[in-house]
């Protein structure tokens, strides 16, 4: 285990992921059709959709071990409930050994208590350390303590080109109810697909929030990159089609506050459909250029790839 000291550099990152014959993120307002920006026709994927995938990957990969627990969970694995008893055994011995005693000794209206509990949460739960959380507080009416702002911030993902949404009608042979069975011998359903879409999402990591609030460290950062690179590998389903993270570009600033505006760095990565391609149907139909000349020398840009899979 490496030294768990908070990160000292600001990072900005860009994720390029694509979907083939699937629905990357349904819109509850449009009957689960893929989200589309009505004005431009570009596809959208919300920040919370991707955060869910990151949480799920970490939960799967680290199996709820300290300090990688996930607070906002998808209840998917039954054996994690069995593991809970073991975890509480583990918790007693981690971090601050006297925490329980100290908490008991504390008065109810002590703002310090909220802070300690916040630190305890950040220490235990990866998703709170990374994205933040909102907690109730003992101190009545105090808004400030209950909000944990995490260092990692994601925007919406947007497709490079307008997407073409297709509705596919499907039939099934089985019928659900007896009443239906008397009348018909199959039912129709439908699903939406995007034949192909390449999406881009930008994100930010604040070193200062990591240092001052949640203690998000280099090990967490490595885990975040790993989770992003692998987030679709364990998220297969009938609705998703083929989804994959194609590129992850990480800009590492030379300092905690940063050395360049994020928008300038993001502008340095130009993604566009090749001139000879009328309709994109694969990742190879796109050209990606990184213009190093607009990136200051104190900022390094890395194209991360995962060696695990």
């Amino acid at each position, binding site marked *: 285990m490496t030294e768990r000291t908070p990160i000292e550099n600001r990072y900005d990152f860009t994720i390029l992921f694509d979907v083939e014959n699937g629905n990357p993120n349904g*819109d*509850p*307002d449009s009957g689960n059709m893929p*989200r589309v*920006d*009505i*004005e431009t026709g570009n596809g959208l994927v*919300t*920040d*919370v959709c991707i955060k*869910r995938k990151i949480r799920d990957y970490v939960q799967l990969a680290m199996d709820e071990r300290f300090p990688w627990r*996930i*607070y*906002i*969970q*998808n*209840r998917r694995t039954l054996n994690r409930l069995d593991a*809970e008893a073991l*975890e*509480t055994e583990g*918790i*007693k011995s981690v971090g601050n050994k006297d*925490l*329980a005693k100290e*908490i008991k000794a504390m008065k109810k209206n002590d703002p310090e208590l909220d802070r300690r*509990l916040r630190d*305890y*949460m950040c220490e*235990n739960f990866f998703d709170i350390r990374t994205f933040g*959380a*909102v*907690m*109730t*507080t*003992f*101190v*009545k*009416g*105090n*808004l*400030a303590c*209950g909000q944990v*702002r995490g*260092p990692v*911030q994601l*925007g*919406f993902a947007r497709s490079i080109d307008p997407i073409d949404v297709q509705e596919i009608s499907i039939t099934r042979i089985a019928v659900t109810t007896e009443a239906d069975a008397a009348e018909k011998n199959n039912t129709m359903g439908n699903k939406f697909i995007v034949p192909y879409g390449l999406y881009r999402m*930008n994100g*930010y990591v*604040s070193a*200062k*929030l990591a240092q001052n609030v949640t203690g998000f460290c280099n090990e967490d950062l490595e885990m975040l990159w790993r989770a992003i690179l692998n987030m679709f590998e364990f998220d297969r389903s009938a609705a998703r089609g083929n989804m994959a993270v194609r590129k992850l570009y990480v800009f590492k600033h030379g*300092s905690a*506050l*940063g*050395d*360049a*505006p*994020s928008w*300038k760095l993001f502008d340095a990565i130009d993604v566009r459909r090749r001139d000879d391609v009328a309709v994109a149907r694969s990742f190879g139909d796109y050209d990606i250029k990184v213009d190093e000349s607009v990136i200051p020398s104190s900022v390094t840009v890395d194209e991360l790839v995962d060696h695990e899979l």
Partner: protein
Amino acid sequence: MPIRLEVWGDYALFTRPEMKTERVTYDVMTPSAARGILEAIFWHPGLHWRVDRIHVLNPIRFDNIRRNEVDSIISTSKIRSMAEGRGDGGAIYASESIQQRSSTVLRDVRYVIDAHFELERGKLSPNDSAAKFQSIFMRRAAKGQCFHHPYFGTREFPVDFRLWAGSDEPVGFERRHRDLGYMLYDFDYRDPFHPKPLFFRAALDDGVMDVTSAEVRS
């Protein structure tokens, strides 16, 4: 000493306090959101940002986004039990405490914030000065540095920012008077345990919201 910052982004959500569950944005950025952006770039306990004017450069357009959200927040008492070795801290299971909430958000916004700061002498060290803070802010804004990345109302809507370049005045998107009704001005944090919302009567004149003469009510 005034500063002038240009900010822009794809989306913004300045939630009206009276419409918080199905969030609906104000038509323009609130002074409190503008202050939050400035504080993301530079803040000091002895420094208070005062927003003077907000120039609205892009037409006001709306969009709707519905998302799955959890309806609960983390309970401290359950966390305390967990720290004492009992229970799982009441983890939130997304599938069981899910709500679909829609947000009416602003699209493609661009503002210019005019602001200045006031100093609270009691919280400054001897070598702090207005000139020092001013130059720190200008340096950071010029380099694109920030404490954390600023956002338009909620964290998923990041702000791109730069110092307003050039000597010409920013031009608002329209030539008329537009009444915006009562808007949130900011919170009064003098009693940190009971922050009080403050409101003012907002209007856009030629696309500019002037806050300097606003009569603020609680």
